């Protein structure tokens, strides 16, 4: 085999791996997933970072030393969505807006895809609550499937995140 042939072979192999690995990663999120709770969980501050997992018929959100549970059976609706957020965010992102010659605006063009998971559940008195989480691409669908398997209801059973299924689908902006 010539050197050129070997290069082409390695190139094709890398291309194939590039296509397969993200899909494989997207399907592997069975343990707790790092998420941001945007709003809605009782007793949890907005934009709280933590881990989300499904275990023993409960949705667990662990943030710091505290944890919140929602029974899967009390979940009326669980919906996933695709979204995007600024790659350079937080304080640096805000400060960068003041950069000269529109440098900060250029940074705004760089965005990373994320998944959203929206859950509607009822408390002991029957009151309806809603919680929104953002998480890495491909993980929301796995959590949704686990919740549905453990008794949660959904109005969109066939719904899955476009980001997990297709790389060409347009993504929405960050909520």
């Amino acid at each position, binding site marked *: 085999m010539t050197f050129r042939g070997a290069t082409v072979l390695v190139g094709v192999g890398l291309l194939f791996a590039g296509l397969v690995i993200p899909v494989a990663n997207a399907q592997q999120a069975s343990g707790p997933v790092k998420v941001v709770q*945007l*709003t809605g969980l009782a007793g949890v501050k907005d934009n709280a970072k933590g881990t989300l997992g499904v275990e023993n018929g409960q949705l667990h959100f662990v943030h710091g030393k505290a944890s919140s549970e929602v029974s899967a059976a009390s979940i009326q609706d669980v919906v996933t*969505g695709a979204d995007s957020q600024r790659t350079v965010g937080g304080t640096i992102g805000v400060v960068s807006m003041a950069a000269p010659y529109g440098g900060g605006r250029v940074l705004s063009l760089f*965005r990373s895809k994320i998944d*959203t998971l*929206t859950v509607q559940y009822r408390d002991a008195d029957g009151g*309806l609550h809603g*919680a929104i989480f953002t998480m890495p691409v491909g993980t929301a669908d796995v959590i949704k499937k686990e919740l549905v398997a453990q008794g949660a209801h959904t109005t969109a059973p066939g719904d899955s995140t476009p980001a997990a299924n297709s790389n060409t689908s347009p993504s929405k902006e*960050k909520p």
Partner: protein
Amino acid sequence: MKRILDAGIKLSLFMLIFSASPLRAQKNKPAKIKAAALQVEMIQSDEIKLPAEFQVALYENLIRQLEKNGFSHVYRDGDRNAASVADLVVLHSTVRGFKAGSERARQVTTVSGATSITVHCQFTSSDGTSLLEQDVNGKVRFFGGNLKATYDFAKKAAHVANENFSTPGRE
């Protein structure tokens, strides 16, 4: 001396007329409707296709802002405790307009990419009699994610409730 006295009298009359106008305006303002508690129904969006996260964010922000505005008893959709409350006011919200916008466009261009949402708010008594109806909108024009429009709506809707309803201990 007489001229100064005349001018003084005219000035006092002038001041009296202008200071009395706001008082009269306040008297003409309709009396607040008595509401022992508020119940917020889930946001409906049958005609407009609204992402689930927007629907939930509208609902959660609305409840939070109403509580912030001094409504001590804000019941959620389906809460059984609300059934026994006298003078309960129920807030029904229906999405009438939604423009998703783009955070990226806002940050890059400043002038485009605004997110806006229009919600028809109807306050009814527990028997379904309409007490007040109003369209309220929420917008995010420059900074922040698209969901910030739901916060803007919630603040305005809570203000409408605050202006028109009185609860015990908050007149």
